[in-house]
Each structure stands twice: as structure tokens, then as C-alpha cells.
């Protein structure tokens, strides 16, 4: 079954890409933030 992402936040994604490009954050740090948020949701 195909599902189209209806909640994509292009501005946020672009901002993160800029931060990554400037070496301010890394992919691992972004993942850790996401994991922490997920835990807080529960």
C-alpha cells in the first residue's frame, strides 16, 4: 500500500540541511534529538 507523506516540513528540513552543511550539527546528533523526543512523547 502506498502512502504519501502529508506532514513533510520543508522549511525545517532545509534549515537542518544548512546546519549540517556548515558542520554545526551531525546526522547522529539529529537522530539522538529525535529519539529523545520520541521517549518524551511516551
Amino acid at each position: 500500500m502506498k502512502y504519501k507523506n502529508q506532514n513533510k516540513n520543508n522549511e525545517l528540513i532545509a534549515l537542518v540541511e544548512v546546519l549540517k552543511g556548515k558542520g554545526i550539527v551531525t546526522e547522529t546528533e539529529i537522530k539522538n534529538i529525535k529519539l529523545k523526543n520520541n521517549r518524551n512523547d511516551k
Partner: protein
Amino acid sequence: MGEITPINPRVIFVNETEPSDKTEGKLWYNTINNSLYTSNGSAYVILEMNLDDLNKQQLQQDLNILINSVASSSTLNDYEDMFVDIFSDATGTDNTINTTDTTAVFDTNKYVYQSFEESADLSKGIAQTTDDGLETVFNTNYTADENIIISEIILENNASQQNNVVINVKIGSDVIATDTFNFYANQTKTVSFELSDYTKIIPKDTIFTIEVLNGNFYCKTGTTFDAGDYMTIEEGTQTIPGSSGVEVSMTAMKLGWDSSKPKLIIKTNAQTIEENPIAHQIYSDNSTTENGTINYDISFDNGINWVTDQSLNTKNASVHEGENMIIKLNLNGTSIDDKIEAKNYGVMLFY
């Protein structure tokens, strides 16, 4: 005040034949096929409960939960399209599984890694010389000496045509493999259960039963039955066909580590996607023990090129051009102790 009809204390008939009492509303539990019947006043009709609508609702909910689970495994929620399916049956809820090329074993609601050693003929009925009369069932109990799967049972009909013959493999009253067929005179019938939706593993030291119903078998007393290496025939009452009736033999497969099959796959059919994604990420509700692992291969050009051995829950950027996606979930084992299960998959595509 009207006449009060006393309630017949007999609530339900439990019998192998239809009761002569046809009072409307009476219930009959048929011990042959374990089904419940109700009388319409003149005959007993099977009582069926159709749960299709409920099951459909449940599966739709499961798909929505799966979509949420897959999405939450995405770091930035920056995927465009997601393709999901649940292994609620061998073909998947959305029928995306290629059951021809899939080598993992389907079990109830999941695919599992299970390695089988090569099969061998294990059991064969041996007729004696003294005819002991006509029986309508064949029924023999065994103990599994290893973890086994009954892959095939061969019946030889040396008698007249018999219709609606039912063969069951049972653990207690639980039917784990079944088939129904018309059986012609002098026919050899091979019933194959291997990797079917209904076949389950028989654990070591479990007693199981092979039964054949609705046949007319000339049976012998004192018949011996060679049970082979992986099972032992149980002492007690056995009804075994003789040379003038139906002979039964079967093939079982021992579960064991087959080094020629270290990897079993769950493969999807080709699914049309927006062409040329730049990355992919797959989620699968799975469990592994010992040294078992799970990863995936993906193709975007209908199986011509493959990106292999990709990690789950990771945005992987190895791609090639194409618009026909096939996924292979790899269940990788290293020994008989490895257990790997997968219940669903969800792939996110990035552009």
C-alpha cells in the same frame, strides 16, 4: 395464560452423526469436523460466524499503526512516499509478496527463518495377511523425536472410489495441516503440505495424529508401521489400512541447520514508484535471537540491479535509476539456534 413449553434439558448434542431430534433451534456439535450445527426444523445446517468485516477493520488499523511506526523511524520526516504491507497471510494484506520466490517460512502472521534438512521417506504402512474388516477412518498417533514438519503424505487407494476424503495432521484437536479430495480407485494421491499456509512445526516430543476421514479402509490387526528416524509410533489403538484398502506413507522433514540455506528471503512483487529516488529506508517489526540478523536488498529497475545488504532503520543512499521497486528482506542465520521473525515491512523513499 398460554401453555408453557418445558425446556428440554438436552442443550447440545455431541455426536459424530446427525441427531434424529430435529427440533428447530437445537444445537449439534459434530465431533468429526469439530463444527457446530443448528436445526432449522428438518435438518441441521452448519452454524457459521463471518468475521471478515471485523478482520478487515483490524487489518486497516494495523496498516495505519504500521505507517506511524515507519514514519517515526525517519529522522527528519523528509521522505516522500511510503510503501507498507503486513504479513497477515502469505501474500500480505495488500498482496505485495511474491510467494514463488520467497523462501522464508510463513507462520500464522509472520515470516520466519527456518532451515530444513533434506526430506526422506520416513513412514510406510505394511500390510498383514489377516483381514480385520472395514473401517471408515485411518488414525495413527506418533511422537516427534525431532522438531519436524510433515511435508507430504502419500495415499494409495487399492479399493473403490471414495469421495470427500479428508486428511488431517493434528496436535490434540488442533488441525495443523489439512486437505480434502476425491479419491479414485487405484489412484496414488500425494498430499503436499510443504510451506503451505496451514503447515506448522511439530515440536520435539509432541504427540501428533495422522487421520483420514470418509474413506473405506480394509484394516488389519497386528499391522506394523515403520515410523522412520524422526518419529516414533505410539503404543495403543492404531487403525491401519491393509493391502486391499488404502495404504498410507508419508514424508517428514527434520528441522535442522542446512548450510546451503544460510539466508531465507521475503521478496515483494515489483511496485511502481516515482522514478529515481535518491535514498531509501526500511522498517520491519522483527525479532532475532542468537546470531540471526535481518537486512534488505532493494532494486528500482524490476530486479536488474540490486543494492544489497542494507541496514534497517537507516537512510541508505545507494541507488540506481528506475521506477519498479522490489524489496528482499534477508533473514540471515548461522545455526539451528537462530530464530528470526518479521511481521511486516515499510519502505520510505526520498527524492
